[in-house]
């Protein structure tokens, strides 16, 4: 079998607070192939954000290992080397723009930190701005543009250093329904063209079915993997698919998974 792009091997994360230790993720394993679009679905507090934060070196693991291209990437208490970080782009729930930089400066920030200089990178920034229709707002400050535009800027900032993997932490959760649908379709479009590996975190079942090839369903107390659902829906996906029987079938199946979790919580 081909080497998985990303591999979680029995990963556990315990957060130590002053009074207690919280088991955020328990014994989580998953394998994702290159170019796949997978979703991690679960209610809030199930540790789904924690997973991709561990992968991106923002927080460290307590137990277990994470591999990218077969290379172990979790270094206890040590900063992840830039060569690995460069493979990933992180898209936050909030646009997370730095208000003191213009839109363009914000998007180019990873280039500055990764020390990627030169006209080809400048050109890449311009192309990405063009891609999401922000060219004319390049010199604006984040406070001067709308939420949807900001989130688009957040997406292309994560892509500016040409990472192979995009990690998306409920990226469109803060947007209104219409903008969200539009952004989802734009994202699919970007994925089809660039074939990046995408891990998409969401608590929205419909979104997970619409976008991904496989859904990892997580439960709470402790955060753990409860189900893996492969989605056999044709690509390219369109919004009109939402009403198709197969789509509804998958949605109901996932709703069932989530429902079980809720019941177990009541017990």
């Amino acid at each position: 079998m081909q080497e998985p792009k990303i591999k979680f091997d029995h990963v556990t994360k315990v957060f130590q607070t002053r009074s207690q230790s919280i088991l955020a993720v328990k014994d989580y394993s998953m394998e994702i192939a290159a170019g796949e679009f997978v979703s991690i679905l679960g209610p809030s507090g199930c540790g789904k954000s924690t997973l991709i934060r561990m992968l991106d070196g923002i927080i460290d693991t307590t137990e277990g290992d994470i591999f990218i291209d077969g290379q172990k990437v979790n270094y206890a208490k040590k900063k992840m080397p830039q060569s690995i970080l460069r493979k990933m782009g992180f898209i936050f729930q909030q646009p997370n723009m730095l208000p003191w930089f213009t839109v363009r400066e914000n998007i180019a920030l990873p280039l500055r930190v990764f020390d990627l200089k030169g006209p080809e990178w400048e050109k890449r920034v311009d192309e990405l701005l063009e891609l999401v229709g922000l060219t004319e707002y390049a010199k604006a400050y984040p406070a001067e543009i709308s939420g949807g535009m900001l989130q688009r800027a957040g997406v292309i900032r994560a892509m500016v250093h040409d990472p192979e993997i995009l990690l998306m932490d409920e990226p469109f959760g803060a947007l209104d329904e219409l903008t969200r649908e539009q952004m989802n379709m734009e994202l699919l479009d970007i994925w089809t063209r660039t074939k990046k590996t995408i891990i998409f975190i969401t608590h929205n079942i419909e979104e997970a079915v619409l976008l991904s090839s496989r859904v990892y369903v997580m439960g709470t107390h402790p955060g753990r993997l409860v189900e893996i659902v492969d989605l056999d829906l044709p690509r390219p996906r369109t919004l009109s698919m939402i009403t198709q029987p197969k789509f509804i079938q998958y949605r109901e199946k996932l709703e069932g998974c989530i429902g079980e979790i809720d019941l177990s919580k009541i017990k």
Partner: protein
Amino acid sequence: MAKNEAITARKKKEKRDPKGIIAPLVVLAIIYIGLEIGLRAFHVAAYVMPTPTHIIQGTIKSFAIILPDFLFTLKIICIGFCVAIPAGILLAALFSQFDIVVKAMQPVVIWLVITPMITLIPLMTLWLGTDPNLRVIIVIIQATPIICMNTLNGFIHVEQEKLELAKSIGATKLQTFVHITFMNALPQVFTGIKLGCIFSTIGAVSADFVSRGQGLGDRIIKFLKYSNFEQSYGCIILIAIIGISLYTVAEKIEKRIVLWKK
């Protein structure tokens, strides 16, 4: 490019809007005329409050006497203030590197902000002698803590997500500080600097009051002793003008640098 032009146009409009200059001038004129009329109408004695016109006349007449003291106080405030800004920011930057130091130093800084440094002057004269130029030290220890306190506040209150962004792109500690922590604190740094203007002025004049011999504070007392009330008030106004000028310069620089805040 239409949007960009709109933004610049809006900024220009804000800058050129004359209301911001005219309105305070009108208030100033009303106070001037009101005092002038009121003081004359009610026959207020000059030792209670001279009329504005008399204050200006008296001050101009005695300006040759006032000037050396004015320049001395201006020098003390400016030098002290210019040392206090980098000192305050640098100390805050050092403290903010370690949580434990922040916790340890915050009460000390607040304690220094609250203590009126005028109380230290007699002691400092004992330690350092009577050279009037030593009043710079009073200004420095009066203004540094307030700048440090505000800056430190900005340094330690950075949104977690912004720091996560830095981590996700592997920014070094220095890069994180320069691009995120420091920029995040800039508005508060300027608040500290503006408060520093006020504290510097207070520090310098209170030093004059205690140590005497030179400075506008000293000149006020001398004028009062010889019943030159107009000139005393003139000196008070000159002190205020120094403070306001520094404050205005700080504010202008802030508007140039902190472009993202409206």
